[in-house]
């Protein structure tokens, strides 16, 4: 969520540097079983299980007191030194609890899976984070808070690529865990992480706003934009995806926006940005590839546009207010055989790259994704960066890998959409095109939603 600012200002290159990850971690297995985790350089300053177990036990006994969204919003209304200090309290009670849950979940994985270097790395990082926060001295002044916020920012940065790293690990563990087990684990890990980042970044944003009132905009409460405009988000993500698509496929479709173009609603822009970017990547790639298939790569025939329709909720609505966005393309749709897989994490089923084209299309790639696509189109590029970089790591330099929306764009977008009670649904007209419906609850009316991992 830090990415809001960084992306908007154009400096977005928080890359895990997968090459580093690979060089430090991936060597692990070759050393054989003798290499205990201790020999791993990233592991050295981390707490041992014995040190951390009592602390985990202690936190596990604390009753869950998830923060509601309205609490989170109220901290910024008005923003005062006291409200920032209250915000710290929430962060210091909830974030370590959430990290503790992840530690316990990772510790509960089968031993052989825990031995995977990527999974091991994740566990170590989580233990560190947990220990840091669980033993953090009380934050009593704004000065304390400045230090704490700095540490928190570093922590958030270090964990930016948790999911990709874990995903890589599970990909390698496909023999030891069923797709369903992996999928369930990742779902809850991602939800947990959305909660952690929301709490942390809300606090970071509030602290920053308090310190630097000139940077505040009236429509923001921390990371929540009270008048988020889907149209301008679409334009921003669309121009990014257009560039990416031009750079990798040579052409790109137009975007048409219709419906209620002037609608605004309260939402977290970075969530919407992630969702829209992933959907647009799929639609753009499908549209261009379909068009090439039908008319050849050099044709004057225009690529059919991707049409985004915005519907704002009716004020008299008896149901929770929901803003809907429909993304409609003529990219050929998805065959019924692939429909069941479009929300699966790519790496849960291994496939060879050869049949990737046959079963075809970017939506199917959600399923085949991962290694297959890397092997065929990204060899020599920046390794797994494209696959594993999340929104913050998006970059044209990752080329094909990024436009292909490899691996988990749709499943993860759906988790984001569902986090506050929204939805993401996919409908295909096989041989013609696809519709994606994103429905998001207006957050000013979603105060009851718990910031939690469930």
């Amino acid at each position: 969520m830090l990415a809001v600012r960084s992306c908007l200002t154009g400096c977005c290159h928080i890359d895990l540097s997968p090459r580093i990850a690979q060089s430090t971690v991936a060597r692990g297995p070759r050393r054989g079983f003798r290499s205990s985790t201790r020999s791993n350089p990233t592991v050295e300053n981390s707490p041992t299980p014995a040190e951390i177990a009592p602390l985990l036990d202690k936190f596990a006994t604390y009753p869950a007191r998830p923060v509601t969204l309205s609490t989170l919003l109220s901290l910024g209304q008005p923003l005062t030194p006291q409200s920032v200090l209250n915000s710290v309290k929430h962060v210091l009670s909830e974030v370590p609890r959430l990290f503790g849950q992840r530690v316990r979940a990772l510790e509960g994985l089968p031993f052989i899976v825990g031995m995977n270097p990527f999974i091991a790395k994740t566990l170590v990082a989580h233990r560190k984070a947990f220990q840091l926060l669980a033993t953090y001295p009380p934050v009593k002044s704004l000065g304390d808070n400045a230090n704490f916020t700095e540490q928190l920012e570093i922590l958030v940065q270090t964990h930016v690529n948790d999911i990709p790293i874990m995903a890589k690990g599970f990909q390698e563990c496909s023999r030891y865990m069923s797709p369903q087990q992996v999928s369930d684990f990742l779902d809850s890990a991602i939800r947990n992480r959305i909660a952690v980042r929301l709490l942390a970044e809300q606090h970071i944003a509030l602290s920053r706003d308090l310190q630097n009132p000139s940077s505040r905009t009236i429509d923001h409460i921390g990371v929540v934009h009270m008048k988020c405009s889907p149209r301008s988000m679409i334009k921003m993500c669309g121009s990014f995806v257009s560039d990416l698509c031009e750079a990798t496929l040579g052409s790109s479709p137009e975007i048409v926006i219709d419906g209620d173009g002037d609608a605004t609603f309260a939402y977290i822009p970075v969530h919407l940005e992630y969702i829209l970017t992933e959907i647009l990547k799929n639609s753009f790639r499908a549209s261009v590839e379909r068009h090439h298939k039908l008319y050849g790569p050099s044709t004057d025939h225009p690529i059919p546009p991707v049409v985004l329709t915005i519907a704002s909720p009716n004020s008299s609505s008896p149901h929770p207010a929901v803003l809907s966005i429909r993304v409609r393309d003529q990219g050929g749709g998805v065959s019924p055989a692939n429909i069941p897989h479009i929300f699966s994490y790519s790496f849960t089923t291994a496939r060879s790259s050869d049949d990737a084209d046959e079963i075809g299309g970017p939506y199917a790639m959600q399923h085949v994704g991962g290694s297959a696509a890397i092997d065929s189109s990204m060899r020599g590029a920046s390794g797994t960066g494209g696959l594993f970089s999340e929104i913050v790591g998006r970059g044209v330099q990752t080329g094909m890998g990024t436009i292909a929306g490899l691996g988990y764009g749709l499943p993860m977008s759906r988790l984001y959409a569902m986090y506050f009670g929204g939805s993401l649904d996919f409908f295909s007209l096989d041989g013609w095109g696809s519709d994606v419906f994103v429905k998001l609850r207006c957050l000013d009316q979603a105060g009851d939603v718990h910031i939690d991992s469930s």
Partner: protein
Amino acid sequence: MTWLLSPAKPFMLAGSSRRILTNVLTTTRSVGRRGLSNAQHFYGNKQLELYAAKEAKPMTLRQLVFFGRSINEERVIISGNYVRTELPVRIAHRLRDLQALPYIVVTQEGMDKVYEMYLSAFDRFRRFPEIKTLEDNEVFCKFVRELLDEHSTVIPNLSLGLSLASPYLAPNRLDSFMRRMLVSRISRRVLAEHHIALSKDLQARRRGNGASSDHVGIIYTALNIRKSVEKCAAYLRSRAFDVDHDMPKGANTTAAWSEIIVDGHTETTFPYIPEHLEYIIFELLKNSLRATRLTHADARTLPPIQATISAGENMVAIRISDQGGGLLLPQIKSPSDLFSFSHLRNSTRMEHSRLGALRSVSSSTKGITATVKEQLGSMSQPTTRERPDRTAPYPRIGIGLPMSNIFATYFGGSLELVSMDGYGTDVYLRLPKLGTNLEGIEV
């Protein structure tokens, strides 16, 4: 029920059936409840149980089509006798299904009528003598045709009865019961209509007009979706703009209906039963047209409705997108509730206007068989001037979507609704090509 008295059908009143039939007669003439709880009726259930114990003998669509490809006298007689012996078994199953419902449910208005109609149909069918000649078959076809027509009030009666019975039957149980009734009804009608169509084909061939090759029985081998959409669109758009008499005050009643734009794979043809496809499209377009009209009541030109056709390998799909404001009703929780017959899921079912419309349709002779044809018939009837009650020519009784859903899923297709609240609705209809996967499809 006048046919029961007709001496022209002696086979019905023969032998031991007289008791049951007399019973039914009394029932229909006097107060229904008394007849149904009659002890005679209770002890007269033996024949029914005998048939209900038999298994239905489903036909795959492939068998039906292949059997019909080279129709001759012998085959028509085999087909007739299959229908003659199969239908009473299936009707008996449905009667047992009705008998197993809570007493309070079947004694609701409408349900008792359905029960009686089924019971008498069962009795007449099982007494129909074996078909040995083409002449026998002609009589049989006429008999079946009449029966199909008489049963046209079944759907509104069932729908009325179940709306009223909703408090006594959990929504899931209610909907699965209704589904069994309607699916069985479609199957029986497919079998019966197919047989009648085959008999006609044979007649035509004998007269020297070779049976047309565009269909086998009631299955059309190359049904053009665009043409079906355009046909329905033309009919629907030719109606008076205020056809439902529900325009808000001051609204523009002289505007024109929305354009219906067809795009996608517009030349797609596929093998299907036209009545089924057209019923669904007709209902969906009717809903879209109406929603758009009501949402944009003061607009000069209404936003268009887009129908996109796509042909996949084994399925065809039709997407209908309108700008009618979506499906957000306080009465329903999710769009799929609109497929339910339970008023607990869709409380619009208990509105007076709707119950009233169901009552009048249920007691009319014409009833509703869920076809486009009958709706066209009623549309061409005189309009409001001659209708002092100001009811719309085709009353809104709330069976369009539930029936469409049943028709769509009948051969393994699907119907999905997506609401863009505040903007419009997208409907996705998927139907299997009835030529490629005939084996698995049983009727």
